[in-house]
């Protein structure tokens, strides 16, 4: 026997069982109900007095035949827990977390009503679904007309179909085109964010030699830097870096974004890319001699929709999502991103990526593979 002899259990323990806002039933091995509290009797639209002594399977079985399995499990001295178990009462279906435990000489079933949680969950799911639908409308139905607007303006501006009559016309057409480019970027970025947040962005992690990847990107961005009269340079590491584990396209997206920002906010001077080898990761720095960022703004730059409002003209205003996307991508690849900056002197944006084969790299790979698997399972 337990600590309490039956007679010594204070009377108010029964009251506690009765008042508890969960359903409680105990039964013996002949399946007769021994104790049933008010709440449980209430669920069954009856009273404890009427139900004590009745066969538990007869009392509960019609609500969902599968409950017989739970009762038998407890009879066989196995504890059991079922989540969101459906019970079909006369008026409506309700959902319960059911816990079955083994007590001396009797089985215990506890019923926690989670119908409202289930309803909230279902509501959330359907809201999430309508959000997904909206995003997919954005993807197809918004992008196609934007592509057309950009394309036709481009052809008119190149005077492929006739001369633009006045400089003012040309100016307005150029403004329209730059607006359409911004809209295009915004839609693209919103789609990227939704893909990452819904864990639908796929990462193809490979062991990659880093130096040529950076070198190629810097080469491609060189024209843009020259147009702005900014010196863009990749300082090649003195000794060869170990292989790193990255998705090459995503990595390039992050670094291109950082270089793009650096060029945008650097009226003169230089943008330098360099790498630092650390214990289990490589750090990539993008250092500019631009306008810099006030200290109190530095933490905010990676937040969604953050914009440096200052003197940025509306023409080269970004979407406010670029650095947020960089942060999400970097973290997915097992790295971190940060900035140190001094106003009017320049900024150093840096991010890290795991070295192939390190525990950090392996852990990252596992998480990515798990997410990809979950995505397949959902389909």
């Amino acid at each position, binding site marked *: 026997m337990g600590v309490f002899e039956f007679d010594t259990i204070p009377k108010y323990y029964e009251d506690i069982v009765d008042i508890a806002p969960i359903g409680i039933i105990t039964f013996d091995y002949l399946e007769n109900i021994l104790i049933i509290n008010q709440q449980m009797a209430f669920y069954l639209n009856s009273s404890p007095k009427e139900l004590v002594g009745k066969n538990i399977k007869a009392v509960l079985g019609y609500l969902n035949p599968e409950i017989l399995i739970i009762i038998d499990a407890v009879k066989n001295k196995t504890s059991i827990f079922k989540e969101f178990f459906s019970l079909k009462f006369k008026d409506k279906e309700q959902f319960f977390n059911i816990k079955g435990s083994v007590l001396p000489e009797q089985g215990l079933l506890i019923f926690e009503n989670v119908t409202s949680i289930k309803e909230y969950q279902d509501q959330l799911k359907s809201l999430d679904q309508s959000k997904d639908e909206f995003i997919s409308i954005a993807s197809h139905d918004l992008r196609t007309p934007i592509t*057309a607007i950009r*394309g036709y303006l481009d*052809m008119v501006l*190149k005077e*492929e179909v006739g001369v633009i009559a006045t400089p003012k016309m040309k100016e307005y057409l150029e403004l329209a085109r730059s607006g359409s480019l911004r809209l295009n970027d915004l839609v693209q970025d919103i789609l990227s964010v939704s893909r990452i947040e819904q864990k639908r962005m796929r990462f193809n992690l490979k062991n990659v030699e880093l130096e040529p990847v950076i070198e190629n990107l810097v080469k491609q961005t060189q024209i843009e830097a020259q147009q702005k009269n900014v010196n863009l340079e990749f300082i090649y590491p003195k000794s060869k870096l170990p292989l790193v584990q990255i998705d090459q396209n995503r990595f390039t997206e992050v670094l291109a974004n950082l270089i793009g920002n650096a060029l945008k906010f650097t009226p003169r001077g230089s943008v330098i890319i360099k790498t630092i080898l650390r214990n289990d990761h490589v750090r990539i720095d993008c250092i500019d001699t631009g306008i810099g960022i006030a200290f109190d703004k530095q933490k905010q730059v990676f937040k969604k929709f953050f914009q440096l409002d200052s003197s940025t003209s509306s023409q080269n205003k970004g979407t406010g999502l670029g650095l947020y996307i960089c942060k999400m991508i970097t973290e997915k690849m097992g790295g971190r991103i940060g900035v140190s900056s001094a106003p009017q002197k320049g900024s150093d944006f840096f991010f890290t990526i795991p070295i192939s084969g390190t525990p950090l790299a392996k852990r990252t790979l596992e998480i990515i593979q798990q997410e990809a698997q979950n995505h397949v399972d959902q389909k």
Partner: protein
Amino acid sequence: MAKILIIEDDPLIQKMYAEKLAREGYEVDTASDGEIGISKIQAFLPDLVIVDIMMPKKNGIEVINYIKTQENLANTKIIVLSNLSENPDIEKAKSLGVNEYLTKSDIDPEDVSETVKKQFSN
């Protein structure tokens, strides 16, 4: 001059690329879904097909599949022009062996014309 068939369901996009390429001197024909596209391929016998992926009736993958299974179209070049940069269909298109893959939102008409030019200079 080389013959190009553009299979694209959005009329604005279709006209944009068709007129661009026609100005460059190509002989251009258009189709607004995959089914019309396939029927036009045999009649027009284009040197190059520009094909969208998501289309009514028959989609771009079916069109590519068709071209790849016709002996008389063995030399027909294919440029896929899609809106979706992340769809499994893209992988499928690539595995079927297309010559180029362009994402609409990343390109201008000029890029399409450059890509076409490259196909014929090789």
